[in-house]
């Protein structure tokens, strides 16, 4: 039983470490690990994952806020839609059958694996400060002062930016919230995409603001799971501590590794986990046995 705690802790360190390398909270690794390796019910795995997502978010968010990269106003504005989405997602998640969750999770993992693999050769040329500064604030963005400046260490200067399409960005962000409540993930990938590609926010400010929001989004769904009785504190504690530790380590070595190598490993891991989750869902819900690898 003590080895069980240690094993949970080690798996969580791995998830946190790897999550930090590819820029995610680690929920997409933790949920399959808890259901497939520890045979925990998926609702319990999702609840544990959502709490550990809060843990990694707090650790990461603080460092970005200190570095003044986070746009607190933009984060607060988008939190209306991410917490709203989280509420709906958690409600659906609590009411849904476990096998449906396994199948949705499997499909999501496949999708994320493919998206990540396709962008593996893309270099970090997203930050063109001139282009970001050229945008102008429209209606809601102007009323809510959705603009900012941060100091980019790589290019050694301040980057100014102005948000565009705040409503569209906020609608897409609500999907990240639903994913968080339903599946126990942070949904950072969706939030960053919404801010960076739709709202013209520089990549670093998007990542920092997304990390800042994930804590509140995840807390909203965690409250639902906590009060509804889905949280097993004996599982949550080692998992949350492990992901915090792993994420801290991961963020330290991230810059030293080639992103192409990381993304290729991530791709194969995800394809494997996605296959296992779908196999589990089919077997639980429809009694269809497809050959499992575990």
């Amino acid at each position, binding site marked *: 039983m003590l080895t069980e705690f240690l094993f949970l802790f080690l798996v969580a360190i791995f998830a946190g470490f790897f999550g930090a390398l590819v820029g995610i909270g680690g929920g997409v690794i933790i949920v399959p690990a808890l259901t497939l390796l520890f045979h925990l019910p998926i609702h319990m795995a999702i609840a544990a994952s959502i709490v550990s997502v809060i843990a990694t978010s707090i650790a990461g968010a603080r460092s970005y806020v200190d570095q003044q990269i986070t746009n607190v106003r933009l984060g607060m504005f988008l939190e209306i839609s991410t917490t709203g989405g989280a509420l709906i997602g958690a409600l659906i998640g609590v009411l849904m059958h476990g096998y449906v969750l396994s199948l949705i999770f499997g499909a999501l993992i496949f999708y994320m694996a493919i998206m990540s693999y396709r962008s593996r050769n893309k270099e970090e040329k997203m930050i063109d400060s001139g282009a970001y500064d050229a945008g102008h604030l429209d209606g809601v963005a102007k009323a809510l002062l959705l603009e900012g*400046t941060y100091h980019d260490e790589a290019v050694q200067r301040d980057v100014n930016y102005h948000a565009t399409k705040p409503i569209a960005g906020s609608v897409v962000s609500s999907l990240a919230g639903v994913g968080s409540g339903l599946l126990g993930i942070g949904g950072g990938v969706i939030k960053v995409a919404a801010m960076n590609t739709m709202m013209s926010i520089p990549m670093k400010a998007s990542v920092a603001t997304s990390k800042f929001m994930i804590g509140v989004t995840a807390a*909203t769904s965690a409250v639902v799971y906590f009060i509804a009785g889905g949280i097993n504190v004996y599982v949550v504690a080692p998992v949350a501590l492990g992901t915090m530790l792993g994420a801290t380590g991961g963020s330290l070595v991230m810059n030293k590794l080639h992103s192409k190598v990381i993304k290729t490993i991530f791709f194969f891991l995800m394809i494997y986990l996605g296959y296992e989750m779908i196999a589990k869902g089919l077997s639980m819900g429809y009694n269809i046995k497809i050959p499992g690898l575990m």
Partner: protein
Amino acid sequence: MAIDEKQLKAETQDINKIVSIILATGMYATIFFYLIGLILVFVRGTHIPKLSQQYFHSFGGFFTSLFGLHARAFLYLGTIFLILTPVSRVIISIFAFKKEKDYKYVGVTTVVFLIILISVLIGSIFKINVG
């Protein structure tokens, strides 16, 4: 828009500082209670329950467990601190924006807080059947 750029920047830095302090406090409190809880688990050799359950039926039960140095009381406390850290960040931001007389963001942040309150209600209506 009356707020000039310099004022906005100073105000933003104040709010950033407050947010950072809350996040740090919550994180260390969580780690502290989790570590005590896990040490108690190792010392007392508790099993991991396979099902989540209602740990305490009353506040009294919780305190009995806490002062009796039961692992679950500390693990429970750590989890509460963890979940409440982002929530308290939202609550305190409402007052921070109010102090800066930024009433639009007092409104925005209050809406976020109300959504979190609704999640408390929803959580108490539905019970999860894990197993």
